[in-house]
């Protein structure tokens, strides 16, 4: 993990801005576990804890890209394990459509990602962020949906 952090520094010094929407019951707790286990991962992703991945409105994704995010991550409970019975099934369907929409408007696929991380998967959480940051670094800054001001 430490090695990955080292190699992630690229020459241009580009540090992607990422918003990570984490379900309170699984991925946010999983990120807490990553913390308790002192796993190291890049600091680019700023977490926003939401009640359920099912409460993830497509507007939040568009809003984040509009405000200049280089990547958006949504992380919820594994399908079948939703704290609220079936919220993550809604999330899965909706996010598929958002992905299609983003493709349609010409945004790179890798900029928007959904992951399933349970409260017990601290290692997985650190890995997901690590990999996401690396992939976004390859893509460079996001300008397609960023508001011009």
């Amino acid at each position: 993990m430490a090695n990955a952090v080292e190699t992630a520094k690229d020459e241009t010094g580009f540090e992607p801005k990422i918003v990570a929407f984490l379900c309170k019951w699984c991925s946010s707790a999983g990120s807490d576990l990553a913390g308790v286990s002192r796993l190291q991962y890049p600091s680019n992703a700023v977490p926003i804890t939401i009640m359920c991945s099912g409460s993830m409105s497509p507007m939040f994704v568009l809003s984040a890209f509009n405000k200049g995010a280089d990547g958006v991550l949504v992380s919820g409970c594994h399908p079948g394990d939703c704290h609220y019975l079936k919220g993550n099934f809604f999330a899965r369907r909706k996010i598929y459509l958002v992905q299609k929409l983003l493709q349609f408007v010409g945004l790179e696929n890798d900029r928007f990602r959904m992951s399933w991380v349970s409260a017990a998967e601290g290692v997985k959480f650190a890995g997901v962020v690590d990999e996401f940051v690396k992939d976004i670094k390859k893509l460079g800054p996001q300008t397609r949906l960023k508001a011009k001001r």
Partner: protein
Amino acid sequence: MTKRTGVFVCHCGNNIAATVDVARVAKEMGEVEGVIFSKDYVYMCSDPGQSTMANAIKDNKLDSVVVSCCSPTLHEKTFREVTEDGGELNPYRCEIANIREQCAWVHKDKPKATEKALKITKAAIKRVQNNQSLTPIGVPVTKKVMVIGGGVAGIQAALDLANAGLQVVLVEKSPTLGGNMIKLSETFPTLDCSQCILSPKMVEVSKNKNIKLLTQAEVQDVSGFVGNFKVKVRQKAIFVDPELCKICDDCSKVCPTVVKNEYDENLTARRAIFIPFAQAIPATYTLDESSCLGLNPVVCGKCADVCEVGAINYDMRPKIITEDVGAIVVATGFDLYGKENLGEYGMGKYDNVLDGLQFERLCSASGPTGGHVLRPSDHKEPKNVVFIQCAGSRDPESHCAYCSKICCMYTAKHATLYKHHVPDGQAYVFYIDIRSGGKGYEEFVQRSMERDEVMYLRGRVSKVYEQDGKMVVKGVDTISGKNVQIDADMVVLALAMQPSKGTADVAKTLKIGRDKDGFLAEAHPKLRPVESVTAGIFLAGAAQAPKDIPETVCQASAAASKVIALLSKDELMHSPAIAKVRLSHCTGCEMCVQACPYGAISLTGPGAKASVNDVLCEGCGTCQAVCLRAAIDVKNITQLQIHDMINASLGV
């Protein structure tokens, strides 16, 4: 929007301060619009830290507060209490920014970690500035408890609860109470007879007016929430009326079907109509549908013909029973690790390779041999018996990684019991380590070595096979460094414990977590060992982790006392952070009604607009994500608040 926000940044000793420039966070956050007070302190959660916060709220007339510290799962409750009690401000005006687990602990670069901490804290400020004051919603509780599993854990929990005056529904899958414990012969380290100590408790359950016992029943569906669960239980038809059955045994004498007897661990046989054992509770015969010739008087019908009291009725059908309960205790117990997984020890292939529970039955006075240790193949007394510990345990490559905890002790007990039954025999034990922590446990193991001359060999067994009527055990003694071969008459494997087969399904139905080995997951490994992650559902016994009888009884009583404390109140407080409809925007399209996992939204009133049932709503926000007109929002995490948080997270 609030105008007088206070920000408190915690150093957490050096936990946060080592990687986050806390003074800078406090300073820069003090300059955010609407923030009028900002301070860093070494331990916000300490007594002086809490008073600092309470006084700052009062002195500066703060109307919203952010504490930038550890995860909200740890201290959100603490700081909201400070806000309410000391600061005299509504607790929902306080939000936590997690800059420890999600920031300081996972990054090393101080400037970058500080940047991230600034964004996290600013996002929390933007959120709290649009928070409303909320009051928890009181919900009446059902003073009734469901206990799932009728082993010693379930029995103990049910009795404790019933004796405290609560109504209990005890659900057991098999035809009788007793679980694994009732099969044991004697228990370590005192060697008191297991049946003698458990049977009276089983009778107590059947006599207790507060306990409703449902055997041959399984939980099918659970809905609701802490204080108000609705549980659907499916009870199989047993085809015998327990009220009429006189336990005369006439029916099983005429029954033509013979199948293996599960209670005797398949060492004996039973009929299709049977009673598991004489002391079974409920005390009635039961007809096993799967082995009966057809529940049809035309095909057989012998048992019904001979039953003088007419207790047998082939027309009985399964029942679905719905129970309203306030809390649930899960005590689904353990099964032994599948013998089919241990081919190298010949388990399942040779009659004279037994597992620990089968050996218990051989030693038991009520067992297949009437308490004489005889080998199953030829009913001769075995003169050399090899006990193999850690069969399936402590073997991360091929089997279970964990220690099954009780095997060291029960193997020492088995060897001792064997010597009591066959004084001129020799017992050998292969072990990796001897783990005998517990009152009187170490002394018991020592006694088995010294007085009963059990030979302990430190090492693993590589192979067990049959040759000339003997079980040849090949292993290594790592202390002498030599290969060992023992020509034994019988081999007993201390198989690993694993959660009982139904545990996975129960966990799924109840929506409680399991750990990597499949045991039920506790809410906190140290501080909340009997609670599941779901409020109102508690754990007891070996379904949570391998444990012996005293520990199981402890945990069952602990779970019961947690339930008693929970149900001692007349009302439980339900989170007020629930969905709210903006009627001016709602068109009554029903998208939210269909999306709500709890059926909490319905169309009411003039113009049929959405309305939320305060008690049913859990505040998940699935509704807000489907509403096309943003007409529904979860209080204190509204869509506008999330947009503000997105801005703050991106440094906009």
